[in-house]
């Protein structure tokens, strides 16, 4: 059973859809990422108010033939990976205002 978490896009990113992929650049260190179609759905739905479980259930599972519990685990793993790069925020509570990151000098 995965935890019920909330996810929100960082305010310090640049992003644009290019074909089926999403280009995301972190303003923190200018690292460029591309998200595939699945990751793009998760990322676009990461509004800080919708629980990750609901995103998987309503946005991802209907699009792909996948067993829901597996999808939930994979989505949490993906969210954690995006968060480790600073482009997604994760919280146990709804995220109303994506926090500013500390100054990196």
């Amino acid at each position, binding site marked *: 059973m995965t935890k019920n978490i909330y996810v929100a896009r960082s305010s310090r990113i640049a992003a*644009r859809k290019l*074909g089926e992929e999403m280009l995301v*650049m972190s303003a923190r260190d200018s690292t460029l990422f*591309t998200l595939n*179609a*699945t990751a*793009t759905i998760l990322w676009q739905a990461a509004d800080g108010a919708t629980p990750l479980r609901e995103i998987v259930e309503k946005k991802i599972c209907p699009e792909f033939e996948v067993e829901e519990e597996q999808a939930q685990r994979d989505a949490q793993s*993906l969210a954690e990976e995006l968060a480790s790069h600073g482009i997604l925020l994760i919280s146990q509570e709804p995220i109303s205002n994506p926090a500013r990151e500390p100054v990196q000098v």
Partner: protein
Amino acid sequence: MSKLLQEMGDRALQLGVPLSAHIDLTYRCNEQCVHCYLDHHDHGEMTTTEIKRLLKEMAEAGVFILTLSGGEIFLRKDFFEILECARELTFCIKLKTNAVLIRQAQAKRLRDLGVESVQVSIYSHRPEVHDAVTKVPGSLRRSIEGIRFLKSQGMKVIIANVLMTKNADDIHGVHDLAAELGVESTLDPTVSPMMDGDRSILNLNAGDAALHKLFRDPSLIGNAEEFCVPPPAPTPDSMDSLPCSAGHTGCYVSPYGELYPCVAFPLSCGNVRQQRFIDIWRNSEQLKEVRSIRLRDLSGCSQCVHGATCTRCPGMAFLEGNMRGPSTADCQKSYARTGIPSANLQAKKEVPASGRLIQIQLVPGFTGTRLGHPATLPVQ
């Protein structure tokens, strides 16, 4: 450029997406640089509302990397309002400025808005040289202070220098200044003609001896033997190659709304005040013509030994009178680098006196990472 960004550029080319755009918000400036190619008078800049509408149209068209430049961008009183709008539309923002008007408050605001990088023009580490180029006493001190404010906020800063006779002895001084400030630096050995075609400022170019020395300086270009190696013969693939991204995945918009393939390629393709950005991008006859040009179509260049490796600028060729012709300044550059004259120079029986050179990037740019691709979630 990272491999990933190159891949995205290739994808954008396939999809017909303008991945990058450059907007000059104003041509007005608080410096009067001797080599500047712009007319600094205001002939009717786009309003805040017009620029915001343009930004929305660019975002919808797929523009990802947006360069905001001038003139001096901080002379626009609505600059931060424009920048906030651009960031709400999630552009990757690059700024070009002289940083004279950047103090702590501006630097913090740029940082809070998630600007990707700020390029600052510095022409010498010596005030008497830099200030003589800008014609503004104290400008070097102010620019360096601006850079320090940006660095104190953790911003990525790039010093941009232009090689001229006036500062040819200060290249390493600027390089060392960048290192001391903890920022990247680039050197453009190019003085471009005025946008109206006036070529008189080209006499500021540094000249053969300085260029020859520059091209063989390992601290600036890396391995000089590799850099100056004679060009390989053009292949059938290279004959079908594109000259650069101008008009293909990138474009430029002037403060008056004129859309060009590139800031260095002043071929008017339409005006965003009269037409939607995407309509110009897709339907402009001028852009279609630019996009149709391949190396095999170029008179002279297609038979030139430098054809496959030349950094021929189509904008410079256009300013010489023929976008399908050679850019003599780039011919001179190839000659200075390799010692082998181009077909164009041989035909003209010209001995190069000065050259338009490639921009030398001293420090690598973006890094890139793919995410989600190895995930176990099924990929459609």
